[in-house]
């Protein structure tokens, strides 16, 4: 194959681990391998590392160390927030969420429904913004929890978290947000956002896979969902993934330090990519909010070109992106997020999500614009729709 250029632009799926994170982790596989629960020196080395990591993560989001519960990742954090709170607040059986949440939230809510709980799924507008008025109208006597993501993983729309927090406070309802996509790209501070619980995933911010956190504000009435040896203050049993947690904490520290610079860099690349695509390719639309969107998210649809075909042709040119227009066994089906955005049929099957990372460059943008032009031209030449 020789040396084909390879450009990774799928950072909303996962990110490469930062070398500084790897360096921080390495001693914890070999020399400092102890179980943090052991009383000997091996154990206390690990326990001290956990203590430091907990403080690093807490500092990065403006929380207290005792409000940090390490989990196996964003999905478990979402599960813990919802399944830990909802069934354990007597008589309160109702949850409010949005139609564009991650499956970790939607499928957990669906499970609670199967157990007899009630869930309201608040709609979004054409830009993917949750309708705050409908959200407030959905509040009931027995509403216990609101769970709305900070920023959407597909279209990058940033949600009005502060407004939703006001509503939650007004009616004395717990408020959880999934901040898996927003950490490191926009400010994430638990007091500024006004949330009671917040989920973060390590591998989306240049940390290792298999580790995450649920922030739980002091005083929240929450039960564990994993039982055992009472690790993590009894909230999440299981021997701590010390190396993973140390790496995650380092990644959080770096994300907080670099967020301003990363955000400027990614916004420049994002806006350049969008304007150059709009200037050089016809019949394209931007999905998601034009300005209230993550600095690293570009989600576009092209007429007369199908998502999977675009993805594969781009991959053959070394460019890795994703699509919300997957071809499943039953039908060519758009994702639940794109479907909620009321995108016309002509566009909905041709979506691409290009999610940038701090290691991408303007040269990468040049290359990707060229690769996109070639890909779209090739598919449109094949499409019976393009000449009608």
């Amino acid at each position, binding site marked *: 194959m020789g040396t084909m250029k390879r450009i990774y632009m799928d950072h909303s799926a996962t990110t490469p681990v930062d070398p500084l994170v790897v360096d921080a982790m390495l001693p914890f596989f070999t020399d400092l391998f102890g179980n943090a629960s052991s009383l000997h020196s091996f154990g206390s080395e690990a326990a001290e590392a956990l203590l430091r990591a907990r403080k690093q993560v807490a500092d990065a989001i403006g929380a207290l160390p005792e409000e940090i519960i390490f989990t196996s990742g964003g999905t478990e954090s979402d599960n813990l927030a919802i399944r830990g709170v909802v069934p354990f607040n007597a008589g309160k059986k109702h949850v409010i969420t949005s139609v564009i949440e991650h499956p970790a939230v939607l499928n957990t809510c669906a499970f609670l429904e199967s157990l007899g709980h009630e869930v309201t799924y608040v709609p979004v507008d054409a830009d993917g913004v949750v309708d705050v008025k409908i959200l407030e109208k959905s509040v009931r006597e027995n509403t216990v929890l609101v769970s709305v993501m900070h920023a959407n993983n597909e279209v990058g729309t940033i949600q009005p978290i502060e407004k939703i927090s006001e509503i939650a406070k007004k009616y004395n309802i717990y408020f959880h947000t999934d901040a898996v996509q927003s950490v490191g790209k926009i400010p994430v501070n638990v007091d500024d956002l006004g949330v009671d619980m917040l989920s973060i995933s390590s591998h989306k911010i240049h940390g290792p896979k298999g580790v995450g956190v649920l922030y739980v504000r002091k005083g929240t009435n929450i039960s564990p969902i994993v039982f055992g040896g009472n690790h993590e203050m009894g909230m999440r049993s299981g021997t701590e993934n010390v190396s993973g947690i140390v790496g995650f904490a380092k990644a959080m520290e770096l994300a907080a330090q670099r967020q301003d610079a990363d955000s400027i860099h990614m916004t420049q690349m994002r806006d350049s990519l969008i304007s150059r695509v709009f200037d050089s390719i016809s019949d394209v639309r931007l999905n998601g909010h034009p300005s209230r969107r993550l600095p690293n998210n570009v989600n576009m649809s092209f007429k007369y070109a199908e998502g*999977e*075909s675009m993805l*594969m042709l781009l991959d053959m040119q070394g460019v890795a992106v994703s699509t919300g227009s997957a*071809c499943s*066994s039953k039908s*060519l089906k758009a994702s639940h997020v794109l479907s909620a955005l009321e995108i016309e049929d002509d566009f909905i*099957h041709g979506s691409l999500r290009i999610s940038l990372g701090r290691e991408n460059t303007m040269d990468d943008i040049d290359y990707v614009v060229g690769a996109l032009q070639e890909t779209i031209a090739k598919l449109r030449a*094949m*499409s019976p*729709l393009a000449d009608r």
Partner: protein
Amino acid sequence: MYSKKVMEEFSNPANVGVVEDADGVGEIGSTIDGDIINISIKVKDNILEDVKFKTFGCVVAISTSSAVAKLAKGKTVDEAMSLTNEDVINYLDGLPEGKDRCSGFALDALKMAIDDYIHKSK
């Protein structure tokens, strides 16, 4: 997850286009469903002299369209009519599980084109 043959046919398809003064045309799909496959044929002395396709759709839709056009070209009307979905999938060295939905569409479009030709030539 796709075979090498599928990726070859997908990235470098043969017989893309519309046959001029076609003897038969078949089209399947809609923008709501997602895929649209259009196949046009030229028949001379009962032989499919030319088969061309235009397809909007996923990797499977495009690669099966290319495969069907190649398989049908040069065959008699009866031979082309008796092509099966299995012939197409075998030609492509198999398709991944769950991707078989649209694998038959290209063949359906070809058979619609042949039906159109038979109907017109009566």
